[in-house]
């Protein structure tokens, strides 16, 4: 049992019911992504512009694959949380629930496929 009044439990939570949790999550992931992205965009761009062999060679470099894996994971979490706010702004009821579940699942699926691909590229060498 928690010795808190209902008022005390609600304080600081606001209309979202979760306080500033989402705001702070977006800020922390934004700073992380801001550090990673310049490097990731250029190395990924170079890989896409290369032929198969050279793209593989670029992507198996840990200096490329580790930041890329990090950016993919953090980026997809940032995306899921951001897209969720958009869904909450424009939809309600069952549509809202369904879309949030879909976007969350999809972002995890994309993360999993991307990390799998990077692992295969790194381990096959």
């Amino acid at each position, binding site marked *: 049992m928690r010795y808190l009044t209902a008022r005390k439990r609600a304080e600081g939570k606001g209309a979202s019911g979760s306080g500033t949790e989402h*705001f702070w999550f977006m*800020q922390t992931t*934004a*700073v992380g*992504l*801001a550090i990673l*992205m310049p490097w990731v*965009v*250029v190395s*990924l*761009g*170079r890989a*896409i*512009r290369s032929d*198969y062999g050279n*793209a*593989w060679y670029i*992507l198996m470099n840990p200096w490329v694959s580790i930041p890329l894996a990090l950016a*993919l994971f953090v*980026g*997809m979490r940032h*995306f899921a949380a*951001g*897209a969720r706010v*958009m869904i909450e702004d424009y939809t309600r009821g069952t549509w809202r629930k369904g879309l949030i579940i879909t*976007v969350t699942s999809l*972002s995890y699926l*994309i993360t999993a*496929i*991307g990390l*799998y*691909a*990077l692992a*295969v*590229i790194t381990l*096959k060498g």
Partner: protein
Amino acid sequence: MSDMPRHPRPLSPHLQIYRPQLTAFTSILTRITGNALGVSTIVIVWWLYAMTRGGADYERANWFLHTWVGEAILILSVWGLWYHYLAGIRHLIFDSLHGLDIATAQKLGWACIIGSVLLTGLTIYLI
């Protein structure tokens, strides 16, 4: 409540009544680019996965990315990323209670638009 007579309620004016403003435009563009980058990620991860499959799967993904539609998606994605990047930094500045006066907010808006185009050019030059 449900047996009360329903009268049409007056609607308060919304977006359509305001003159389009730079700050409103740059704000909604942040949301559009952010969500569009989710689609960009799907394309990139598809290509990455195709790399591991090799052969015809890779040929198909790589062919698509080098058609003009694919190139357009990639270049727009790079621009969208830099725009979202700069707009995100602008939000971090706003959130620290700086740059909230109209003149500075508009300057930061232009900085996002012009800066994103310049960074897109720089990225294409570097890759």
